């Protein structure tokens, strides 16, 4: 599963534990940075572990449940069951609004044209399925993420477009 950051493929330094992986119930978790399923997060946090902890959530958490993740993990992986299901964008934005400063990962078949949206909503990286990557080479994500020179939305000022049109206009007039 290729991992894309700012339009380039990067090595995934995290190990994702599958839902049915019982490693979590061992005395000690395997060393290294781990992404555990949400329902196993509480028990994982009680184990001894040499490395960072991340969580893979479902995409039906409400805002309260998202807030509860604050301060417990260094990475949150947000699923996109289908590219047309944009709920993950609001989940990311909500997490950033509540003050989450760790890594936000989008996980699913997002298409290249959604790369800039994902970053603007607060995602740091996109993990896409292999067959998806075969059809849509990573350079398409690189092209698409800078397709627009700016954006209208204030407070969506993550890279690649750093300044909103509203604030650019405002600066020009003052």
């Amino acid at each position: 599963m290729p991992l894309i950051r700012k339009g380039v493929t990067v090595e995934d330094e995290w190990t994702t534990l599958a839902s049915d992986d019982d490693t979590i119930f061992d005395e000690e978790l395997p060393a290294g940075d781990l992404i555990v399923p949400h329902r196993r997060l509480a028990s994982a946090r009680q184990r001894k572990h040499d490395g960072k902890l991340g969580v893979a959530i479902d995409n039906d958490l409400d805002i309260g449940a998202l807030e509860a993740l604050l301060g417990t993990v260094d990475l949150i992986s947000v699923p996109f069951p289908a590219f047309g299901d944009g709920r993950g964008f609001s989940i990311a934005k909500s997490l950033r609004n509540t003050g989450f400063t760790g890594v936000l990962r989008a996980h699913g078949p997002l298409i290249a044209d959604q790369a800039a949206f994902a970053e603007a909503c607060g995602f740091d990286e996109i993990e896409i399925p292999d067959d998806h990557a075969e059809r849509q080479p990573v350079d398409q994500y690189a092209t698409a993420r800078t397709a627009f020179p700016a954006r209208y939305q204030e407070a969506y000022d993550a890279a690649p477009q750093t300044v909103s049109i509203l604030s650019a206009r405002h600066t020009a007039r003052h």
Partner: protein
Amino acid sequence: MYRYDEFDESMVRARVAEFRGQVQRRVDGSLTEDEFKPLRLMNGLYLQLHAYMLRVAIPYGALSSDQMRQLAMIAERYDRGYGHLTTRQNIQYNWPKLPEVPDILDDLADVQMHAIQTSGNCIRNVTSDPFAGVAADELEDPRPTAELIRQWSTFHPEFSFLPRKFKIAITGSPNDRAAVYFHDIGLRMVAGPDDDAGYEVIVGGGQGRTPMIGKVVRDFLPREELLGYLEAIMRVYNLYGRRDNKYKARIKILVHELGLEAFKDEVEAEYSRKPDADNALAEAELQRIETYFAPKDYETRPDRSEIFEVARHNDPAFAAWADQNLFSHKVEGYAAATITIKRVGGEPGDVTADDMRTLADLADRFSFGEMRVSHEQNIVFSDVRKDDLYDLWKALAKAELGDANKGLITDIIACPGLDYCALATARSIPIAQKISTAFADPIRQRDIGPLSIKISGCINACGHHHVGHIGILGLDKAGEEFYQITLGGDATETAALGERAGPGFSSDEVAGAIERVVDHYLDVRDGEDETFLETCRRLGPDAFKEALYAAH
């Protein structure tokens, strides 16, 4: 009207380039048809029954004469010489070819137009009152807010893949001509407790298969808080709106299932969570936009025009048009004129390239080079000197655009129906044609008075039949088209859904059935001043049943 600055220009151009690339990636197989579909939809490109259809945005209906000329050029170069005005103040071309669409988008961009977000599960073109900015009954001009929302909703990173489409309408007048109770979000400009400017926010209205009247979620929202609050509503919808069933995915269903109070609580909680940093800039932006909507260079004139009064006295055909198609203007000595695109026996809202050029030339001569498209599928010249009205009408009449039927029974709204639409269960245009032919006599039309007939070719209700005084819904029963009639619908501030009258009619019977209803109304109305809708409210729709099914 609003003009693009270099930012708007660069965004629209970037969009055309992006779409060119997407078409290319579809061709080379990078994108599957499933992936390409929402991308083309967000550029206004539908696959219809026989061909692609391109829906071009006319934000809140405002159009310059140069833009109209370009639309005429596009109709001739890429289509079959005409376009179709829609019930959401847009224009559709029914026969473009996919490889040419990026070129059409380029030609549109040349005149500061686009097809962005006219379809797809995103925030659609914002609609408003066709008399915005000039209506004598207006509290405030809604167009700057509409433009602000257009910009804010364009390529929104968070809200471009919503559970379902999302429509916003705004009115600046207490007399609602924008159907704000029938949109996902409706905004009414109102004065606050200290006379400060703001909005009443209505959520969850809509038509389609589950028609609902919108509900007020905020009595008063100060104007500088608008974008932050809209964002809160959108986020609640994007997080909690249903995605398991497309027929239950609109925000009206979420409001309905959560209940109004719980929905309100969610929105207010989300709004209070949000830092309001962007509100300050939005206010500055609104002020910048407002400069584009400063009053026109009106001449100081007496309100009464001798030229107008004399012509009106001498020419009964003009008098009929003046009585029916004019609307009072804020400024003395001026009027707004509706040019109905409802020729008897024609297709509601269809404009030929010649019509478009005639309208453009007349707008240059008589209305500061601007016009509006109304959601009744007509054209409005918003700023005509009363002294010029007679000349305007004569020129219109010469082009067969001078019909005096605004708001009358032949001013029919109809969706494209089975003649074009892949979802249709019945035709709607031929029904409109039959009815308008049956009621062609202008004297009879005037005697009947205000009566809106709205026709949809399936339960998706694009023809807004739920809110027609008389609504007609085309269905399919065992391979035969049949038509259900509803009575008493109302799209204005006295919003109501029409009630079903009873069993449906075949396509040959509909016009006759409507005639019986209308004749009955003429018999039972309480004087000539009682409109069809008022009679219907006084007596109840049931009172019409006997007449409706009399000879049946």
